[in-house]
């Protein structure tokens, strides 16, 4: 078997046994996003500590390919307990590192969907808080 593909053991492990899979009751927010063209869907449930700006807890469910599911799983592990600023500092490159540093162009969208979804919310929060700080002066 050629190993020139992205289904490394790590990924397959996360796909078969996704971490933080499921729903959170009474989340502070829920984020849903989809790659319309391939039908990948992901949904995050987040418990958020407003004062510390920290992601207290996070879970997800997905109807998606293995790449997207594993990417979401790894992401939840990475961001749990971390401040918003850390989430927002994550880049495409960090996600690609989940998959050994590179990914076929046709699968990039699948891999990046979870981060894109999460940051759509966390970046908005960070912006808001900057605005609010400005408002103080």
């Amino acid at each position, binding site marked *: 078997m*050629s190993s020139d593909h992205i289904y490394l053991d790590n990924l397959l492990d996360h796909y078969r046994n996704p971490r933080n899979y499921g729903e959170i009751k009474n989340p502070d927010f829920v984020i849903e996003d989809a790659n319309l063209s391939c*039908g*990948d869907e992901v949904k995050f449930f987040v418990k958020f500590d407003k004062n510390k700006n920290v992601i207290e807890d996070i879970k997800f469910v997905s109807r998606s390919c293995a*790449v997207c599911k594993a990417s979401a799983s790894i992401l939840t592990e990475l961001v749990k307990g971390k401040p918003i600023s850390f989430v927002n500092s994550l880049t495409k490159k960090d996600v690609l590192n989940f998959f050994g540093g590179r990914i076929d162009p046709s699968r990039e969208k699948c891999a990046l969907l979870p981060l894109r979804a999460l940051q759509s919310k966390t970046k908005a929060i960070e912006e808001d808080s900057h605005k609010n700080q400005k408002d103080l002066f």
Partner: protein
Amino acid sequence: MFDPNDIRHDFPILNVKVNGKPLIYFDNAATSQKPKQVIEAIENFYFLKNANVGRSIHTLAEEATELYFQSRKKVADFINATPEEVVFSSGTTESLNAIANVVAEKFLNPKDIVVTSILEHHSNLLPWVKVCKEKSCALKVVNANKNWTINIEKLEALLKEGAKVVSLTHVSNVLGTINPIKEVSKLVHSYDAILVVDAAQSVPHMPVDVKDLDCDFMAFGAHKMLGPMGTGVLYLKKRYADLIEPWNLGGGMIKSVKLLNEVPELSCCKVTYEDTPIRFEAGTPNVEGAVGLSAAIDYLSKLGMNSVLFHERQLVKYLLENLKGNSFEVYGPKDENSITGIVSFNLKGIHAHDVAYLLDKLAGIAVRSGHHCAQPLVNILGTVATVRASFYIYNTIEEINAFIEALKEVEKMLK
């Protein structure tokens, strides 16, 4: 009948190695591979006879014009049309957009009903969405019956309601099912409506006779039938050719343009168009594409379109027998005789993209996964994506064996 092993050497790409394995190309419904004969025809054109067609008075231009005309004749004969009924376009999608636009302009009024079906490729759905919106018409999407062809009763009900235009795919690009166009055209015409047929997936895979089908407009493309990309055909029945205004304007399709005054205003020009089909081909035509399509038709004709269909069905039959296990969900009819060489399925619980990806990486097998530009249909199948294996003349039983082995490997990895 032909043996695919006798023709594989005409397709150099079949010698390519993909991820270390010999390419197995099962993505023919997306685009077919090209035989040497087609590329040679293109090369010969460019290296011996290349010129712009039409007006120039020199030997190359006359030869190019003659080649272009012969290609049109070849296409016409292939579908049993006359040359005036064959307009070259850049592809099925452009043909269908043009048809929707001119049919709407000439024949549709506000509140009119246009009918299409759930089986359509986006290219035969969205242009009608657009023109129906522009013309304030109602677009009705007819469901399929249990054999995954158009529900004739529902179609007739809409015709009774006064539907003016019916646009229907001949063969589903997801399921391979074949609509009974001849029956449909009788019905549609008995209500004095117009029938448009998307033949992108039929003309490459089975005999198609426009006189017998009696459709009013038809669209198909070269690249799915051994020909080059960027070339398509718009068939229009002679009667309509004479009624319809050109949709693109420019060089080559006019006899004369005269300005009526020096600083002219609205409708400043007196324009006289060439006869059909030239009037419908504005600008420098794609002679290369026509010549390539002509060579492709020669290739297919030598095999015989009945044999092409028979060969594909043998492959489908063999594959369907091997997809019977519990692991598979196969969509559409399970009877090879009601479809062309297309099989859509899923490995239960595994996303189609993962299957397609691993088939390629592990075994060099090219299939398509997703909604195949027929999202409404795939949604009705109850999923967001299928794996589609689609066959053509060069595919073999041995390739299907390798495919089945690879599917088992994929299943092992991802289950």
